[in-house]
């Protein structure tokens, strides 16, 4: 009860109970893995992700309090909005390509499938890797280009930055368009991923490569 009052400032942009803001640029916080949310708070306050508002909000807070807020949002299970309808300017060939990138990857371009880290359901993996469903295409696209341009990063080695750089603009459009139109599954398991890519390591998700050199 008390935490929900303490996180009131977050809801101004991220929506009631962190279920996402109205315009697509303020993502859902509810139900995201706690480790991922905490990493983002640190990334904003330490300049690895650049957004003045988030920096100003997070900088005064202790890591313990930030973690408590992350746990709070991670534990909220509020309904998702229905997925967006496919955008009119996206062809079925593009949607096909998007599905292929998300579920199978493209070995010729050294692109692992999204499922290899973000879970077989694309709903995230353990406590550091977020879901990719239930997010608007505009938000997903903005994140990919921010990664490409170094506006968004995380602790090294930054696997997602590397993947964003390998992704062509056309492929980025295709994969975000496909992801944004997928329904969020009714039951979610955060325990399964397909094989994590062998040539990449993720500083933000140390549990991903457990047991691998």
């Amino acid at each position, binding site marked *: 009860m008390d935490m929900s*009052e*303490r996180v*009131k*400032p977050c*809801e*101004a*942009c991220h929506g009631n109970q962190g279920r996402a803001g109205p315009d697509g640029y303020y993502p859902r916080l509810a139900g995201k893995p706690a480790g991922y949310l905490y990493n983002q708070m*640190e990334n904003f*306050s*330490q*300049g*690895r992700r650049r957004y*003045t*508002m988030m920096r*100003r*909000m997070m*900088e*005064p*807070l*202790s890591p*313990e*309090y930030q973690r*408590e807020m992350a746990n709070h949002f991670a534990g909220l299970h509020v309904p998702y909005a229905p997925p967006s309808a496919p955008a009119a300017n996206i062809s079925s060939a593009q949607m096909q390509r998007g599905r292929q990138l998300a579920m199978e990857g493209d070995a010729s371009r050294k692109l692992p499938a999204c499922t290899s880290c973000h879970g077989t359901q694309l709903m995230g993996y353990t406590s550091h890797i977020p879901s990719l469903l239930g997010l608007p295409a505009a938000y997903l696209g903005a994140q990919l280009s921010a990664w490409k341009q170094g506006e968004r990063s995380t602790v090294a080695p930054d696997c997602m930055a590397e993947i964003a750089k390998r992704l062509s603009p056309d492929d980025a459009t295709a994969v975000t368009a496909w992801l944004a139109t997928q329904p969020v599954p009714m039951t979610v398991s955060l325990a399964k991923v397909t094989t994590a890519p062998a040539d990449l390591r993720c500083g933000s998700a140390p549990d991903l490569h457990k047991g691998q050199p």
Partner: protein
Amino acid sequence: MNKMPILFSWALKFTFGCLILATAWVTWDNWGRFSFQFDTPQTEASDTPTPHTLAQGEYLVRISGCMACHTSNGGEPLAGGRRIDTPFGPVFSSNLTPSRTHGIGAWTLADFQTALRWGRSRDGHLLLPAFPYNHTSVFTPTDVQAMFAWLQSTKPVDVARPTHQLTWPVGTQPVIAVWRSLYFSPTPFKSNEQQSDVWNRGAYLVQSAGHCAACHGQRNALGSFPAVDDLSGGFLPSQMWVAPSLLNPTQTTLARSSDKDIAQLLRAGQNTSASVSGPMAEFVQHVGQHLSVADSLAIATYLKSRIEPSNHNAKIHSAALASSTPAAQTIYANHCATCHGDNGEGKAGRYPSLAGNPAVVLAQPDNLIQMALYGGYGPSTHDRPRPYGMPPYLFTLNNQQIADVLNHIRSQWGNQAPAISPVQVDRARAAAY
């Protein structure tokens, strides 16, 4: 007939002479004096500092803000590189770790004393006044020695300082030299025998470690150093926050707070009648919460003694006074009343009252506009680890609506203050840092 040329040549000679004298003075003032060892350190470093000295040194480095300013966000402690925005461009703090290549590992105590007393580096170059050496010149030799001993005991980090990005010619040695001759001379602490030990401790901390005047003192357009005990109020142009006068009893809650309450505000970031935000929240986060109880009480004693009761009461505002509208009342009811109360009474320990709050009725409204636009949390401190926060209204309300609702709270419940215009809100939006 020859009068004009004669006059002209006389004026030319005079000007030229003045220039030579001024150059000679600036040269002596900034470099010449160091050729003579008249300012030799009064204390020599002992070989092994005592644990007490080290503890004292660490405490001083923390409560002086050295640690805060010389640590970049997410970087190694004291390794420098923190960006500091000034009206003349961004500068970066230096590495204070005992790295021999990039820090102060090769420095002697005398080098360190010269830097703190004279703002002059080991190699003789003049330090930028973003380093408040007017305040560090106040430190006693014993305190300087303790800080040096502790800094030398920390982990060396071999990382170079990023290059400053000042607008030429600001930051060049001749410009710093002239600036220093105009605005800087060391001011070692002089205790006041008429006052108690506690008062003197407070005065010493405010003028040295606290460097309160750096924000709460007045600077001119060239960014002059205020006097180390100037608490008459200032403005932080890069952040667009007002540092209220600590002398004027209408600008802060100092006059109506007990010493204990003031000490609590400094250490916890909040007391029964006030809470800190903006740059003062940064101060509490990095410095204030590390103050000992005794030191925070000493500062309170000194600050209370500086209040000037009579001078400010009858100040008449020349600007039009704020007033409310039905639209503003609706905005207040929808967005503000849940936390700040229907009558601006606030919620004790959570949300500040707006009625009778000096920060709400400051004639210069920048802080209020910053809060309405950006909201935010107070600092997490030992005594208040989980502060409540305020939502930002940057996206929810437009400039007119923000001006309206602020004029509402500046005109209700006995509050009276000059009106805020949408243009002022827009200026703060445009200058987002």
